Each structure stands twice: as C-alpha cells, then as structure tokens.
C-alpha cells in the first residue's frame, strides 16, 4: 500500500451527512476491471449536469455550478472536509480509489462507515476523525478563507491550521503503522504462514466439514 506521513493541502468541502459510496462513485463506473482512472467520475452525479458513462471523456461535460468542488477556489484540493457517517453503503473500494485518483490525500469527518474507513487505509488515503464541533469550526474557517490549507501529521496525530490551532485525532496503532510505512499487508500476514497452517491442521481435526467440500 501507499504510505502517508505528512501532508499540507488545500481543503475542499462536502457539506452533507451520510454521503454514501454510490454518491462518491456511481455504480456504472464499477464495471471497470482497473484500479485507476476513477478520479474524473468522483461525485459524478453531483458534479456534472449530464449523466456520466464509463469510458467517456469528462473534460467537455457540463459542470454543475452549484457543486462546491467545481468552484475555482477549490481546484487542486487534496483534503476533503466532510460530515458524519461519510462513506456509508456499499463496500466498493472504488470509493477511495476515486478520491485518491482525484487527488485527495485525506478526509476529515466526525465519523465514517466501517468498511469505507478500512478501505481508505489500504489506499494511502487518511480518514481523520475530529469531533462534530471541531469539524464545524473547520467548515466556518473554510467558508471565510479562500485558499484555506490544513496540515496533517500522521505520526503526531494532529491537524494544524495555518493560524496555529492544533486538533488531535485518534486512530488504531496498527492502521497508523501500516500507513506510515506503506507496508505490504499480504506479505506481512504471510510471515505468519506457519501459524496459519498449524491452525488449519488443528481446525480440520475439530471441524473437518469446513474443508474440502467445494470442488
């Protein structure tokens, strides 16, 4: 997986609760067998006025002027500021793939749906959790400051504003370590191969029907 250590970037808003993965990347784009190229279709239904189809050139599609991320001031945003239960719905990893491909390195929200949260770490996108009040505060600062940047430090677990305010966030140690080092998780699990094999031998003695049925 890709590593994440520190990032300073322009902040873009997604000011609604319960943003689901269908909204992040609509289903017609899930037909792709690739991992990349989803960025132009991130938030497709909100972002464009026409209906998007896979394989289409998005550069001349009509943009929805009411969608904040289409405003010039948010061009190049790499930190998405969002509301609670972000990423709910389907398990599609295409959601973090689309965020990453668009250029987002991190999301900041009060809470996430479990599967989406998990999927972000696998793709070097850091989902930061701050309290609702803190997120409110960031939304206010963002509204009044064109070119609003934030600084995220994963090792220190902090989000810092340019004016010097510091917000701390929590995350699991193992997720943090994996992301900091960009570890190959499969390779890491395979270092426990012997343990897995021992487990299988023991388990097959106890629950033999779990093995061998599907051929």
């Amino acid at each position: 997986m890709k590593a994440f250590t520190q990032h300073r970037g322009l902040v873009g808003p997604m000011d609604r609760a319960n943003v689901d993965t269908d909204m992040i990347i609509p289903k017609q784009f899930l037909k792709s067998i690739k991992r990349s190229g989803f960025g132009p279709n991130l938030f497709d239904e909100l972002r464009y006025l026409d209906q998007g189809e896979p394989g289409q050139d998005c550069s001349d599609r009509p943009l929805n002027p009411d969608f904040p991320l289409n405003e010039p001031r948010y061009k190049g945003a790499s930190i998405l500021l969002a509301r609670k239960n972000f990423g709910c719905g389907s398990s599609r990893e295409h959601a973090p793939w689309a965020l990453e491909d668009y250029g987002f390195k991190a999301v900041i929200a009060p809470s996430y749906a479990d599967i989406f949260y998990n999927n972000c770490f696998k793709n070097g996108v850091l989902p930061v959790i701050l309290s609702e009040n803190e997120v409110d505060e960031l939304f206010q600062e963002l509204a009044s400051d064109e070119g609003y940047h934030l600084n995220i430090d994963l090792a220190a677990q902090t989000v810092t504003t340019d004016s010097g305010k510091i917000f701390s966030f929590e995350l699991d140690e193992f997720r943090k370590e994996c992301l900091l080092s960009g570890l190959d998780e499969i390779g890491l699990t395979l270092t426990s191969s012997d343990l897995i094999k021992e487990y299988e031998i023991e388990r097959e003695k106890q629950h033999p029907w779990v093995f061998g049925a599907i051929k």
Partner: protein
Amino acid sequence: MAGKTLYDKLWDAHLIKQNDDGSSVLYIDRHVLHEVTSPQAFEGLRLAGRSPWRLDTNIATPDHNISTDREERDAGVSGIPDEISRIQVKTLDDNCDHFGIKEFKMNEMGQGIVHVMGPELGATMPGMTVVCGDSHTATHGALACLAHGIGTSEVEHVLATQCLVTKKMKNMRVTVNGEVGHGVTPKDIVLAVIGKIGTAGGNGHAIEFAGSVFRDMSIEGRMTVCNMAIEAGARVGMVAVDEKTIRYCEGRQFVPKGDLWNQAVTYWKTLVSDDDAEFDSEIEMHAEDIAPQVTWGTSPEMVAPVTAIVPDPKDQPEGDRRKGMIRALEYMGLKSGMPITSIVVDRVFIGSCTNSRIEDMREAAIVANGRQVASTVKQVLIVPGSQMVKAQAEAEGLDKIFIQAGMDWREPGCSMCLAMNADKLGAGEHCASTSNRNFEGRQGNGGRTHLMSPAMAAAAAVAGHIVDVRPWLSEGEAR
C-alpha cells in the same frame, strides 16, 4: 467472568493471532466472489506472483452486472451487449478458470445473487467466517456465521492468505419480542429497527438479533433481517442456531453427510450466546408496535409506517438531521403532511439479496394472484435471487401468476437493486422496491426508491400507489 456472546464464540474459534498493536489475524472459512469487486484483486495476486492459499474455500458467481432479460441471457457471455460489462463477466470466468476456483457461471444451475446462492447451496454453514466483496454479506449471519463485507484489497488478502487482519467489533443485541401483526413481514421488522437506531447506530458493532420474533421467523426471513444490518451501520448481523437452522442446512449440496453431519450438528448447537453473556449495547422493541414500513427519504432510516404521513423537517431540531430531511424530500418530490399511501409509483421491483428468496416470491404471488397491475405502472420486475429460486417458483406456478397479473418474470441477478445493467429507473420515477438502499440515484439517475416488503410492493403494483397490504391478505396468508 461473564459468558460469551455468539459473536465472541465465532471470533475466538477463528482467531489465529493477536498482534501487539490491537489488530488480530482471523481465519476465513468461506470466501464468496463476484464479477465487480474481484478483478483488481486477481490482478494484484498475479502481479505479485501469488496464488490462492486454499481453493476449496472460494466460490464465485456473476450477479451484479448481468442482464435479467431471457433473450440476452440466452446469448451467453459473448452476447452481453455492453462491452465493459461483458469484459467484466468474462474476466471473472477467466480468473476462476485460471486459478481453479469453483464458479457457477451465468446460466448454470446454482448461479444467483451471492448472498442467495451461498446459503442455498450449503456453501455457507453455521459457525463459519464468511466474507465477500459486498456489504450485504451480513445476510449469511442468519445461519449463525460471522459474515461481513470486505473491500477489494481484502479480497486479495483473503485469496492470498486465507486470513483477514482486523479488529474485534463490539457486541450489540437487538431484541424484538411479542406478536407480529398480520401482514407484517421480516422486512418491516428490520426497517423498523433501522428507523429506531439510525443508519450509523450500529457502526463498529456486530448485531445479534434475538427474541421471540426472530426465533419464530423462517431462515429466509432471518436472512432478510441480517441482510440489512449494514443499513444500520453494522457490518455483521447474526441469529443464533436453533432447530430451524439445522433443518435448513440438511441435504444441501455442500453440507456434510453421515458422521460428519452429526459431528457438525453437535458443534452448531453450541452457537448461541450464553445466558450470562454481556452486550455493549442493547436495543429492545415490541412487535405489536410495528406496522408495514415504507421509506419516504433517501436513507433507510427515513422510514415510516404505511399508515403515517410524510414527516415535517421542522419537527426536528436544527442541524444535520433537519437539513438531510429537507434535501431528501426535495429529491423525492414529496411534501410534508401527505399520506404515505398517496405516493404514486411508476415502477415496481421485487428482487435483490434482501427479498428474492422463494418465500418472498410466494409472498408477492399471494398478492398478485388474480389481480392486475395498474395501467399507470410502467413496469413490474420480478427477479428471483437465483436459478434455484427461479426453478422452484416455476415448479409452484408462481411465474404464471406474475405473468397473468402483467408483471415481468426475469432471470436471476441483482438487477434494479443497483441498476448496473439495463434495469433502471428514469429520472423522477418512483419505485416500490424490495431492495435495501434508497440512496439518491441507487436505482438509476434521479430515481426515487421506496423500500418495502414484497407483499407491499406487489400491492403497490396493483393499486398504482403505495397502499396498506393488510386488508388484502386473509388471516394466515401472511407469514
């Protein structure tokens, strides 16, 4: 020391290693694959020069993307008109052939929606850990499995290692006791639960559904309930083993026979929460309070009894919730105060891994029998969840009932649940749907979804608008 919950038992039985950093390595017994979330995982495996850890654990089938139209299906994979879809289905076939994974191909007996096909073939059994690159994997928990959805990176991880690196969830118990009203189905119960705890209420938790209502429910009904645990934010939903669970499993294709069967049953009977087990949170509801449910908004928690009116955002305190309601009503084209039963439907969809099993087909057929679809309704899709459900329904003559009523009897697949194929809503159209998500655009760009039970959806098809199905059913007809 307190006893163990069902979830604790399943977890402990599959724990390989507890890491110092709080994560755990958990063994996976069954891995179900489909065409949409697996291609990148297989590609990753190939690029790293790895092969599957164990072959006899994986089972695959195409479902999300495929056509439900008989003629198109008869043309086979090479006849799928949309090129990108064709490549995806073909890629699954190729990957399964290449790696030697058991697949039920598009038109083979056994094929179906992953969560319908797994249990009905006996590929998922009590006590197993079950994963699939699909969030509705919780369905399999109806058989007392520890089952949940995973992302594509994890699909690759499970293929390569037979394990997941994960963290234990918290325990939540949802207890519903009491008499279930006439015409109230498992779908209504679970929608009412989601209405109560909210779409994020179960985040970080494994839910066990307990109480007389779930005990009395069929396994198919329990699957409908567990299926929607994810709509309450919980990746896992479960019901403990009882006699019904065991009877359901008996004789299915991949279920053991003879001595092995007896051995399995002895173990399965231990898969219940201990009396003194402690849950991190408890929710209690009474069946008497639950009427048939209909969603009016764009999130499954935006649900109300069919007898209610569309709620007013102004009754909510200011904040995200109120804003969400205002946006939802605007998207849905509804006004506060209008009766739910005044909502006119343009299309009806009866299907999806929530409600496409044989019981659901029967429930819809009871309502459709001898009646006609309203002339204002453009289309009624009846999509059985699997080839086996389809065959069974046809053996019972249900297909004829639907066709005589003016409904479309289709080939098995996900269909208009997520509208990746040609089955979709037009902008602004209202749909009475037995699926699980009413998100904006879920069933087609601009489409408006109302979630409900198969009986309610069939009644809406006949009435042309949402209607309380209860007076249509004689006592004893509804489950």
